[in-house]
């Protein structure tokens, strides 16, 4: 059964002040109704301040990021979108006409991008409203209904999240900085919109539920009417939200209290010149420029700071070695310590230095990882850390002595190995590691043992 899914993504932009007033935007860090003023609470007689310039710039950048064409030399009115809801302090939301149109991202067409303001936070079950969030600048990205399954939608949202974070212009993901309304229609049914979704997981679940619900309905010969439903997170179901079946008339008018915007080409070009490279474009470039595998490049671009670090390191040391290390050891250490690349405090030179030591075989890769872990905890020169950890590099004579020692001390294992028991080699290797206090390179140990035991 043909499914059409479209998304309306609302993303908060990273600004200090709200869109139309100077209240702070850190709504999650403060008690209810603290970051408020007459404007964002809709007090009688309050008028908006001129729109936040940084929000406008960020929206332009985001629109370019998703591949849209910015509408230059067009009068972009900020409109009043009227509807009645407890979280809307003035009974209307200020939302701009599109600032950009006709983009494409990961195979999904982007219909348009425009500026909005966040409403307050309404708890529908408790019946309370907190206006701290009211007025935080939003950018809305509207897609065409090009997605064909909840999985596709989820994938799109995840990659979109990463893309938006890449710009550095959006508020961090935690706690609803990105919210999505979904719309879904099945062949033979009307388009259903689902609101009140607060996470990518929620969007996925809401869509899965809707498909089942609508499919059942159609199967039984019923009609799927065009309506707006709400997603209930706790029960993972959708329920009807608005009584009417007809589309709501928002009675849009240009806001008489806000002058319109005209985005000229010069300004858009300036944004284009300054903006960060999109992750999928950067990935392709890394592969080509540094001749590294796609898999490594993909991991490297997963965070902008990680990719920045990589390119800095690749300037000083073998890019291919660096790529392997970034994909395996560095990512592993970061995940284990629950850190993001942005949290890294050591310098590219320090990491390059360490990788150089690995390349020269001054340390084993395993030792290198230990040093790396220390470096993440406390940035320092890798040579210093090596000493601090007692990882004095093993001399070849010491290694040979240890191999000889292990063979001598474990004649039974030697016999077993020569008799064909391969695992006896591991036992012997373990003994060598013990004798060298873990400083030997396991690969070297195996190689030497095999050599010595051939006789």
């Amino acid at each position, binding site marked *: 059964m043909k499914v059409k899914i479209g998304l309306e993504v609302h993303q908060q932009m990273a600004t200090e002040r709200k869109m139309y007033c100077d209240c702070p935007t850190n709504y999650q860090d403060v008690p209810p109704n603290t970051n408020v003023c007459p404007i964002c609470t809709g*007090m*009688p*007689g309050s008028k908006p*301040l001129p*729109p936040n310039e940084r929000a406008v710039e960020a929206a332009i950048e985001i629109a370019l990021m998703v591949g849209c064409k910015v509408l230059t030399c067009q009068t972009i009115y900020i409109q009043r979108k009227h509807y*009645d809801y407890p979280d809307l302090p003035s009974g*209307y939301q200020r939302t701009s006409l599109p600032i950009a149109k006709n983009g494409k991202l990961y195979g999904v067409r982007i219909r348009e991008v425009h500026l909005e303001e966040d409403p307050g936070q309404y708890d529908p079950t408790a019946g309370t409203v907190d206006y701290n969030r009211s007025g935080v600048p939003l950018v809305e990205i509207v897609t065409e209904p090009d997605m064909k399954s909840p999985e596709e939608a989820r994938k799109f949202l995840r990659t979109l999240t990463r893309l938006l974070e890449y710009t550095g212009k959006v508020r961090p993901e935690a706690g609803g900085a990105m919210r999505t309304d979904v719309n879904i229609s099945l062949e033979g049914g009307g388009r259903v919109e689902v609101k009140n979704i607060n996470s990518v997981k929620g969007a996925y679940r809401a869509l899965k539920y809707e498909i089942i619900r609508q499919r059942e309905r159609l199967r039984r010969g019923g009609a799927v009417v065009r309506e707006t439903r709400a997603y209930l997170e706790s029960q993972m179901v959708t329920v009807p939200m608005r009584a009417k079946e007809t589309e709501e008339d928002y*009675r849009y008018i240009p806001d008489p*209290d806000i002058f319109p915007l005209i985005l000229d080409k010069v300004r858009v070009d300036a944004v284009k010149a300054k903006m960060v490279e999109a992750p999928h474009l950067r990935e392709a470039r890394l592969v080509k420029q540094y001749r590294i595998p796609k898999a490594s490049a993909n991991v490297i671009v997963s965070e902008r700071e990680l990719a920045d670090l990589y390119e800095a390191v690749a300037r000083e040391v073998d890019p291919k070695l660096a790529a392997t290390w970034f994909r395996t050891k560095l990512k592993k250490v970061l995940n284990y310590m629950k850190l993001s690349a942005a949290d890294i405090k050591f310098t590219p030179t320090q990491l390059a230095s360490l990788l150089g030591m690995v390349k020269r075989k001054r340390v084993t890769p395993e030792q290198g990882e230990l040093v790396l872990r220390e470096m993440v905890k406390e940035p320092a020169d890798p040579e210093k850390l090596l000493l601090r950890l007692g990882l004095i590099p093993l001399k070849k004579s010491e290694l040979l002595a240890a191999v000889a020692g292990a063979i001598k001390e474990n004649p039974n294992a030697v016999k077993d190995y020569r008799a064909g028991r391969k695992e006896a080699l591991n036992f012997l290797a373990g003994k060598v590691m013990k004798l060298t206090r873990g400083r030997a390179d396991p690969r070297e140990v195996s190689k030497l043992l095999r050599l010595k035991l051939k006789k």
Partner: protein
Amino acid sequence: MGRGTLEKLATIRRGELSAVENVQRALERIGKQNKKINAFIELNPKALAEADAIDRMLKQGEHVGKLAGLTIGVKSNINVEGLRATCASRTLENYVSTYDAEVVKRIRAGGGVIIGMNNMDEFACGSSGETSAFGPTANPAAPGRIPGGSSSGPAAAIAAGFCDLCIGSDTGGSIRNPASHCGVVGVKPTYGLVPRQGLIDLGMSLDQIGPIAHDVSGAALMLETIAGKNPNECVMLNVEKVTYADKLDDGLKGMRIGVSPNFAELTDPALMRVVDGAVEKLRDLGAEIIEVELPNIEKALSAYYLIVSVEFFSATRKFDGRKYGRRIEEVCGEEVLRRILRGKYISQKEYRGKYYQRALQVRTLIKQELMAALQRTDVIVGPTVPKLPHRIGEKISVSAMYAYDYLTIPANLAGICGGVIKAGEVNGIPVGLQVQGKVLGELEMLRVMWALEAAA
């Protein structure tokens, strides 16, 4: 005559009259007569304390603003922190302002002492002063007659001598109309000259706050105090400050004054006689009288009522009773509801083009016509209202009520300035001459008004 406000200011500065005494006298007079006039809904309990602070500053020779010690009335749709901005409606009956409107901040900085909140037509939706939820306001200059609206309280307060200056708001004539009926001075500034931050909206693209005063000097003084760019507001003209006071008596030699026969077509002959008399006086004072054509001027009325209804509908969505006050549709008066329903109806998707957008096109036409006329003239004068104010309580139709606005609405649609000065009387009822000026043409407008006042 005509220098009352400036004289009062001088006596305060000279120490002959203290601010406290000025306030006391005002409160005494209000106490005796407001019950009858009903120009004030609420008085400022801190007025004496505020006056006392001014007196201390004066005594110590500290800098005080140009309104120092004067008593000020504020229309009830302008936020004064701590007092109730009721808009004369049950909707906001108990809404205690949570902030000062920008103009109020400037008045305070100017040393003005706010006496109280003036009565008005409910949510500024009226031209008679009869629709307040707190009872109608009387006309001190024409007992038994309506004072006009919607700034009925401010105009009556000035006419009754309750205070030195008032600020009202004008969307379709709401300052000029009552100024005419009550025989006082009223000015609607150029749109965008005076900040609206803190003014409870009727029609956002039309509203302006302006002074109502005993004399032109007083109005000019107030205008100087409240006008000028507000960085905390988006839709304003790029004007830092204005000065009029020292140029008012420049005389009228060479002033080109426009008159239009189209006004007479809409106005009672008795009123026109007074207006014509005033025009003659202006000619005698040296002005050049030029005839201008405003052929579509009467179409402004209906276009206005469509636009203002849409904007008012939008403005009132916030009165849902959740954060403060009551839900407006549940408790408001007829005219308020009428405008909300009209606005709701014509802003529907399928009707927008036919009504709202079409009205905005007519607005363009009116603006073009007035601007063209003002190319050839410095100001345009004429009657303020087409007919005399009716008796309080007299039932008139909705369209008859709207008809009062015929002559004042065009200035709001075009965004130009307009002022009113008493020109005479008909059967003891004041008749005001309206003087309309160009965008930011307040000085010429005020000079004409001043000249007429001085010649009276």
